[in-house]
């Protein structure tokens, strides 16, 4: 029972990590709260769903969903945020909120207000050992998220570009004086972060077996809470915070069975952290 909850919590928490990482990376380098990131996430689910309908292959639809989100994220950065960077950060924030609403409405107009079913299967089947059960989609989530996190970690710690990405988040100006094209690094941040959000959209679409226009609403504010919890801009902190929230949700609802909405957990955690560790779980004072 406990192991079961643990597995469920880690699965959902790792999807939170996929969404929140892009948000924290964008904040780390541009100091913008990229609210429309949740729209990029929903876009990934829609693109994935459409391509799954056309091709019928889950893996391909995942890749196309990720590519669609990556491209959209890049355009948002290049044509909406970049021209606004000389203004106070409230300007891109307002643009971001507006864009998010516009994206939701666009999904509604193009794909309809109803939910679409995304019942992709890869033929793994469910795994059950005694009482313990992992559904096929949970296995997929754990495998794909794990793979993406390892790739991200390798890029950040093992490559020249990754080093420049980390340096840029600390001090973009000094980084540029060593020959790093900061605009290119910002674009890479958006491409990677948005591709991860797209993957999360596809995975949640398949996990819940539905894709709908406002599917980004709850992740929009929940990922914000997670990013604050992890310490704004802190990548390992964000992964940890995502898992903590995923596990806390599963335990509070599944084990303690307190009657409050699971989406409140992230915010209670955020309030507690802001009260006692305002610099985040892994941050420093």
């Amino acid at each position, binding site marked *: 029972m406990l192991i079961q909850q643990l597995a469920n919590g880690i699965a959902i928490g790792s999807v939170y990590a996929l969404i929140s990482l892009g948000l924290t990376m964008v904040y780390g380098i541009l100091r913008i709260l990229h609210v429309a990131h949740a729209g990029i996430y929903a876009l990934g689910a829609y693109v994935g769903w459409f391509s799954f309908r056309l091709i019928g292959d889950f893996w391909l639809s995942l890749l196309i969903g990720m590519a669609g989100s990556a491209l959209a994220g890049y355009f948002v950065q290049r044509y909406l945020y970049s021209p606004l960077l000389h203004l106070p950060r409230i300007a891109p924030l307002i643009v971001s909120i507006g864009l998010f609403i516009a994206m939701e409405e666009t999904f509604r107009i193009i794909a309809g207000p109803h939910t679409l079913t995304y019942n992709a299967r890869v033929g793994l089947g469910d795994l059950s050992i005694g009482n313990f059960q992992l559904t096929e989609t949970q296995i997929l989530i754990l495998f794909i998220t794990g793979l993406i996190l390892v790739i991200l970690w390798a890029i950040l710690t093992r490559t020249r570009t990754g*080093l420049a990405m980390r340096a840029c988040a600390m001090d973009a100006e000094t980084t540029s004086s060593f020959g790093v094209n900061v605009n290119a690094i910002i674009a890479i941040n958006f491409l990677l972060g948005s591709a991860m959000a797209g993957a999360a959209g596809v995975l949640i679409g398949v996990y819940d077996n539905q894709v709908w226009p406002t599917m980004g609403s709850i992740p929009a504010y929940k990922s914000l809470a997670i990013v604050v919890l992890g310490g704004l801009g802190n990548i390992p902190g964000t992964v940890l915070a995502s898992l903590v929230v995923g596990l806390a949700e599963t335990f509070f609802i599944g084990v303690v069975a307190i009657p409050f909405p699971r989406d409140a957990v992230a915010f209670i955690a955020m309030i507690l952290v802001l009260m006692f560790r305002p610099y985040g779980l892994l941050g420093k004072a």
Partner: protein
Amino acid sequence: MLKVRGIEVSYGEFLALKEISFTVNDGELVTIIGANGAGKSTILRSVMGLVKCQRGEIQFQGKVITSMPAHQRARLGISLVPEGRKIFPDLTVMENLMMGAYIQQDRKTIDSGLEESFRLFPVLKERRNQVGKTLSGGEQQMLAIARALMSRPRLILMDEISLGLMPIYVEETFRVIQNLHQQGVTILLVEQNARKALAIADRGYVLETGEIVLSDTSQNLESNPQVKKAYLGGS
């Protein structure tokens, strides 16, 4: 090597640099001395491309670079040891040095750069896996110099490198600058510590509230009564 002609930089209403012109020739060690707030750092930042010039022209090796972004200037061979060191706080010493070598593709050149850094500053080798923010001020200054050298610059800009250092480190860093100069590296050094700077420089410029008021060889500046009075502590 570096020719600056009539540049002007302003921050909003405030004109930080007025009609600044100076040159740095191949292999020279040139210093710009002046009081706090005279605009010394702004000159270096405009040569590196971190602030925009409203007027004037900057030439590097015969090429006009006035509107070129900083990262391209770095690729041409300009390198900056910034004021306040600006070490990447959460990167290790090794990673900080690798950032300095960002424009170097050749593994051998990078390795010999590392060897050189560790020979120059043995303490950096001991601390190579420590993150930047755990180093002392003096060690951070050494790292900042080593990092700037990792790119094999043709021209190195040094901004207030003695500021906030313990006297023994001041001696040591000036000795390192002198060594670099003897090896043929071209250096533009900006300093509040005018006595030390003039002692090792070939030529100097005196900056007062955004304007160059004097330029001469270091020896002549050292014996100039005005300079003596204002920057070398009288007598």
